[in-house]
């Protein structure tokens, strides 16, 4: 079992979403128990799993035998993507087994409402979230990445507008003028590769930049603030 301070995760449903989830969790050094009724799916991600289990997660006994109990599992993620019924039934069983934190993937808004009513700790809607993000980046090409902090606040990456070039953060007075805070600058630094002697670019991130930091062409500003203020800044 992992160290005490690490949380123990169980991912139920190893389709595309579940597989990426176990892969990323394992990259973060977390030990994961992975469950799917399909042996092939379990087999395809077994390298990322502490414990690969083939079982029917809608069967209480099989879940108990798989070691799903509040002493061994801190967080269970229901990533089932093929059947709303299986997802709801598994979630109910996990609640019944006393799992402390349950995160469930919703397949549609109705499903999301039911999951919320059952009392899951978090409902994730990967397709809707990705679609929303894609729509926003298509309509606002200057926003590259966005991380939502709350309904009102977010952290966004914005390509520095022309008006900012060759001016320092202090001169620009971004915090006063736009009510957002520049918490970092992403910059492409031209270099000559030591191995090949070729011209190349290196990514650099300046976190918490000094007020005298000067903006150069191509800089991407990482800004935190109210969404509406970030949106105003984008329109410069």
């Amino acid at each position: 079992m992992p160290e005490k301070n690490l949380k123990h995760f169980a991912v139920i449903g190893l389709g595309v979403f579940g597989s990426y989830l176990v892969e990323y969790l394992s990259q973060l050094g977390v030990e994961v128990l992975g469950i799917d009724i399909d042996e092939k799916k379990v087999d395809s991600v077994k390298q990322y799993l502490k414990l690969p289990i083939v079982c029917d997660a809608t069967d209480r006994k099989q879940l108990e035998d798989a070691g799903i109990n509040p002493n061994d599992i801190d967080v269970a993620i229901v990533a089932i993507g093929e059947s709303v019924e299986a997802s709801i039934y598994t979630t109910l069983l996990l609640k019944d087994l006393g799992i402390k934190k349950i995160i469930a993937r919703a397949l549609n808004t109705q499903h999301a409402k039911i999951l919320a009513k059952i009392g899951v700790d978090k409902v994730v809607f990967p397709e809707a979230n990705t679609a929303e993000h894609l729509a926003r980046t298509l309509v606002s090409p200057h926003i590259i990445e966005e991380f939502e902090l709350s309904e009102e606040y977010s952290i966004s990456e914005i390509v520095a507008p022309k008006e900012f070039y060759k001016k320092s953060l202090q001169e620009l007075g971004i915090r006063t003028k736009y009510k957002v805070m520049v918490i970092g600058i992403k910059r492409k630094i031209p270099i000559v590769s030591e191995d090949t002697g070729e011209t190349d670019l290196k990514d650099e991130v300046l976190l918490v930049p000094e007020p005298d930091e000067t903006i150069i062409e191509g800089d991407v500003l990482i800004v935190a603030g109210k969404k509406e203020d970030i949106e105003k800044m984008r329109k410069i």
Partner: protein
Amino acid sequence: MKKNNQSKEDIENLLEPGKFYILNNQYEEALKFFLKLEQTHKDNPEIYYHLGLIYEAKQEISKAKEMFEKALSLSPKHKLAKKHLDSLLGIEEK
């Protein structure tokens, strides 16, 4: 063999001022230089690779992709053009 080496050296010399502009963040000058060079050397992948770098540094991503694609169409084994194009397309190497 000797002729090839010489021509490689010639190309290096030809590109040098443009590389200098890039390394000094003078992207507009670098862009003018390489676009002018392109008129007379349309079959040189290095020119398109460097144009790709300039557009990438300026965050003009679609133009950057187009240039890296051109470099690769002229020299399919151009590792750096491939690396940059993959990264811009979101296909990061694992």
